């Protein structure tokens, strides 16, 4: 009922754990059998190991949280050697989230992942372009185009591009990525935001800015998913603040073929499985035979 096949991959259900909130699946698998999920997106992977940011990494806001983890990860080689075999054993679709600081870094990382056993590559373009003054690759369509074009050249696996909600024009961004060969679009990543410690009279985060996620961003994320779904003809993965099955259904009705769940895992460690069960129930009660029927119905 919840099954869906995209890019030749069979998803047991449309619920995927979002990148950066689920590690490589090991930890949540100690809590419940994560193979019931539709898929898992890995922590953002870079060519080389990264230590991530110093100082505060997390700060709560009304209905959401700011994070400044800064792409801490063990590097792609380590991932392939030490984590991927375990992940593949989980019997769910494995999505490698590819991050980078330059086009070359993205391309080299993509080459490695494309040769590995991951099912799908999710290109995270919400990364600071270290060579170009640190502006995010995901802001200007022109810049994003270049990354997608170069990465596409070396990737044979399904390539999903994950957009930043900070993009100047989210629809133009999505269309540009598809034109450059993206097989799918996922959105949204975190919103550029900040917090100030009024007693210390300083930003809470060393980097000043941090990424906002969680239920608070849902209405904006949903709008973006709706707009993008109407504009592109590749599958869209919707995310941003999904915390229960109702939110997930909203994203699918808005046009998403799959959804991802991030911050909600922290709000409720069983969030992903409860969403799967909730969606199943919803379809039954509403007399819907297959989830496909409601995708983009709005």
């Amino acid at each position: 009922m919840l099954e869906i096949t995209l890019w030749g991959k069979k998803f047991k259900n449309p619920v995927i754990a979002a990148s950066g909130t689920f590690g490589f699946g090991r930890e949540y698998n100690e809590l419940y059998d994560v193979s019931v999920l539709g898929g898992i997106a890995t922590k953002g992977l870079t060519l080389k190991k990264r230590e991530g940011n110093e100082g505060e990494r997390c700060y709560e806001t009304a209905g959401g949280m700011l994070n400044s983890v800064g792409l801490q990860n063990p590097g792609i080689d380590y991932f392939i050697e030490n984590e991927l075999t375990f992940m593949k054993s989980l019997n769910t679709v494995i999505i490698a989230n590819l991050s980078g600081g330059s086009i070359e870094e993205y391309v080299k990382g993509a080459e490695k992942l494309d040769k590995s056993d991951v099912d799908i590559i999710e290109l995270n373009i919400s990364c600071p372009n270290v060579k170009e003054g640190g502006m995010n690759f995901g802001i200007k369509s022109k810049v994003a185009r270049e990354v997608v074009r170069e990465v596409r050249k070396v990737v044979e696996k399904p390539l999903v591009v994950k957009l930043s909600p900070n993009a100047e024009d989210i629809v133009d961004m999505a269309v540009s990525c598809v034109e450059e060969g993206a097989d799918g679009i996922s959105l949204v990543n975190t919103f550029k935001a900040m917090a100030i410690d009024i007693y210390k009279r300083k930003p809470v985060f060393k980097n000043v800015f941090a990424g906002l996620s969680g239920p608070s961003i849902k209405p904006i994320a949903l709008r973006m998913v709706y707009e993008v779904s109407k504009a592109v003809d590749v599958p869209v993965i919707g995310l941003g603040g999904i915390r229960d099955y109702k939110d997930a259904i909203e994203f699918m009705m808005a046009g998403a073929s799959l959804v991802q769940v991030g911050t909600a895992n922290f709000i409720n460690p069983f969030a992903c499985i409860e969403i799967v069960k909730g969606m199943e129930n919803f379809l039954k009660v509403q007399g819907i035979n297959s989830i496909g029927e409601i995708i983009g119905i709005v």
Partner: protein
Amino acid sequence: MQYKSLDVLENVMVAENIYKLTLKGEYEVKPGQFFMLKSWEDEPILSRPFSIYDKGEDYISFLYEVKGKGTEKLSRLKKEDKVKVLGPLGNGMDVSRIKGKVALIGGGIGIAPLAYFAKKIEADVDIYFGFRDEVYGIENLRNKELFITTKSGRVGYKGYVTDIFNPFDYNLVITCGPLVMMNKVKRICEKTATPLYLLMESKMACGIGACLVCACKTKDGMRRVCKDGPIFKGEEVVLDA
């Protein structure tokens, strides 16, 4: 590790701003392990980590200080209310292996996990607890060597635990409390090369090692307080304070 909804057996104020919360539940827990607790619905969105303070056959208890929104909401709990509990979490310590003489050095609410260490360690233990003014969390320590310091001088030695603690006497030191205190303890222990363990704190999101939010800077790079810790070896940790 389990995620459950537990009944409150008791939630009492034991000192100004300090409460003891007892929940009904059976767990196997090592000293230094912790649980993520949440007794509210929407805000704050995240659970809060608390060290195991005491445990019986069918209960676990926590000693906590009211700091912000989360602990304020915990403090309102009454008997039979429910708390969502994830745990036990973190490395904890296998205290049965400890040999020789141990010093437990705690400051403020940092004494909470150490009280459980004191209860479980069978080796010879000296306890150094420092408070600002009021003393709490010592009801299970009656038969132990207990040195109390208070900044105000209200009870015990007037001053800091680090004034009276001598590392020469110990084969192992375990410390938990404000960063400044732990930093001092670390420097003291380094002089005598006394093995030291620190219980680190950090803001947490997932609590289980998945999100990398609870980073602790170590000689081997950033490590997770919730999974690789909260207990770290003294020589590993890079303290910024």
